[in-house]
């Protein structure tokens, strides 16, 4: 009952003195909105990177083969071994995506124009609805893709080649042994992808890619696993053990440096690598980590400013209410009850600030989402369709609230205790 009375009394006092708390509410609201915007954008950018990378590389976890006898070309020749190893383990995966990828030595030609491709991805149209569904098609259509000569090109490639949907383009590549080979394709669609993955990229049927590069029907360059849950360390170890019994498999790789290092030197036959999506994007991850560190530095600055602002403002408020505190004490209110009353008043301030800060954050994010940021060089990878998007995770929001509460309460605690412990005579006379 005592607590209920204190809460009720604090609410009444809060409503009466809300004008005195305005500066405090503004400071807390701004602080919470800034922290919310920063964490939301940071999570949104990370999500954009991973989402784009997932579609680009075709999975969350990868088994890649590199052929030491053929210029270390990306090639797996043991699909049965890999398939049976995956089946034997209790891995919760959505599906397996097999691709034949060809990187920087592919050239596309159209009426004398040429483009050196960065990514020629040979995919199974029917097994990759997510990949195709995620493409932002700007012309043509994905309705009539065939398994022989359909090609989907990026907008940049379309512009360089001056080729539109319906046009014929010639793809030139090198076979496994390095012989020149060509194939004609009809542009089915043009997609827009402003991320770093989207430039000089095209999709062709996997069978056409196998034929172009002289790969066998059961030969692929990558096995991608779309996972429902990330693989645990024990699952990775089990997969490595299962594959190692029949194949030459390197220890699971977790950094880009290790990935690059593993392809150096000479070897005979096919050497297999196991890595997760994070390894592919570890350089971007490093950048995100750096951004997170900068964000946390800014958090600390903001927190320090808020801490000082709250402390000063609250001391002023307590000073202004010295006489009233004396009156409450003289009518029998205990010091602890007085501290509780003042803290509850601050709790109302805190709750109101959270609500206003949340609304302000939503407004800021809405305004930011109205602009296209793709003009900033190198920033495209963090955007979705050129726009900044925020992602809010319950854990992060909870941490933000807790953080703000963690600095607000100590900041008001000390002036409150000091006010409550004030000499009654001095308090009644209004002296500090």
């Amino acid at each position, binding site marked *: 009952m005592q607590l209920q009375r204190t809460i009720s009394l604090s609410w009444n006092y809060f409503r009466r003195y809300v004008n005195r708390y305005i500066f405090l509410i503004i400071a807390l609201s701004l602080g919470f909105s800034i922290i919310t915007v920063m964490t939301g954008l940071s999570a949104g950018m990370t999500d954009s990177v991973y989402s784009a990378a997932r579609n680009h590389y075709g999975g969350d976890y990868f088994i890649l083969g590199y052929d030491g006898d053929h*210029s270390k070309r990306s090639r797996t020749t043991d699909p049965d071994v890999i398939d049976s190893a995956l089946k034997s383990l209790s891995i919760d995966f959505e599906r397996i995506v097999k691709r034949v990828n060809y990187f920087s030595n592919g*050239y596309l*030609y159209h009426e*004398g*124009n*040429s483009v050196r491709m960065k990514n020629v991805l040979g995919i199974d149209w029917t097994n990759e609805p997510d990949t195709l569904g995620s493409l932002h098609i700007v012309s043509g259509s994905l309705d009539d893709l065939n398994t022989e000569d359909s090609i989907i090109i990026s907008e940049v490639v379309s512009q360089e080649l001056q080729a539109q949907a319906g046009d014929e383009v*010639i793809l*030139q590549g*090198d*076979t496994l*042994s*390095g*012989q*020149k*080979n*060509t*194939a004609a394709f009809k542009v089915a669609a043009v997609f827009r992808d402003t991320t770093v993955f989207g430039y000089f990229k095209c999709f062709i049927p996997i069978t056409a890619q196998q034929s172009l590069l*002289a790969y066998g029907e059961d030969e692929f360059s990558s096995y991608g696993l779309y996972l429902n849950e990330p693989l645990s360390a024990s699952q990775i170890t089990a997969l490595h053990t299962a594959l190692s019994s029949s194949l030459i498999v390197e220890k699971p790789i977790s950094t880009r440096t290790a990935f690059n290092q593993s392809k150096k030197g000479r070897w005979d036959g096919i050497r297999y690598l196991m890595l997760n999506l994070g390894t592919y994007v570890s350089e971007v991850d490093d950048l995100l980590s750096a951004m997170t560190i900068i964000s946390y530095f800014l958090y600390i600055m903001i927190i320090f400013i808020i801490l000082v602002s709250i402390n000063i403002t609250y001391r002023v408020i307590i000073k202004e209410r010295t006489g009233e505190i004396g009156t409450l004490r003289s009518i029998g209110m205990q010091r602890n009850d007085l501290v509780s009353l003042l803290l509850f008043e601050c709790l109302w301030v805190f709750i109101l600030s959270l609500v206003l800060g949340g609304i302000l954050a939503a407004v800021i994010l809405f305004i930011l989402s109205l602009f296209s940021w793709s003009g900033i060089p190198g920033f495209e990878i963090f955007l979705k369709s050129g726009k900044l998007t925020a992602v809010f995770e319950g854990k992060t929001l909870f941490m933000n609230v807790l953080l703000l509460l963690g600095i607000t309460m100590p900041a008001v605690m000390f002036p409150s205790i000091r006010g409550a412990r004030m000499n009654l005579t001095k308090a009644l006379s209004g002296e500090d």
Partner: protein
Amino acid sequence: MSIRKSIALSIIICLLPILVFADEGKGILEKVDALASYTDSDFAAQYTIVEEKKNGDRQKTVSLVFRRDAQSMYTIVIKEPEISQGQGYLKVENSLWFYDPDSRRFNFSSAKDRFQNTNARNSDFTKSTLAEDYKVVAIEDEALGRYQCRKLTLEAVTDEVAYPKMIIWVDENYLLRKSEDYSLSGRLLRVSAFPSYTQIDGRYVPSRFLLQEVLSKEKTQISISRVSFNDIPNSTFSKQFLENVSR
């Protein structure tokens, strides 16, 4: 004559022209190789590559080529453009290395790779090995401008060559005058023309040759100058040489 003998005779009669021109073709290819390779001495020259892009831009690359065809070795040092100065290639035994002075590292390259991102291939600077790499599947006579040529259709006998199919025109002196390079799927990719040769110390050297990339429609002219058949120090065919010239 029994039926068996008749069938055998028919097969021999059918195969005879093929065997004859295959043999004749190999002989022609060997002569072409012999003229385009310098196995009895070292060879050094300056190669100037001028590329004409479709947009009208011209790109010039100058390199010094040192060859010891008897041992299938060569060293190439890039002189121009300035940005590529000091880069080089070293072919010894079966390895072809590319040297980058900025990183001071040697990386594996391939004779089939583009030379300095031009339309020329690394293999365009080495000795000719047509007889080794290709078999002749057809021969016919054809006039090529003022030259009366033998037109040979070639198919690769190894997958180690960049172009699985070729058609070449060889003049009466067994000098290569034109070649067409085809992809595995049979699409024409490149046309090379060798309009002029100069005779130096009794050996033929093309003073210039022209390459046209059919799909990109880009043209490249390669001029060969400052030709020498004098002995080249052994140290030229070493990694250290490339490192030293780039300093």
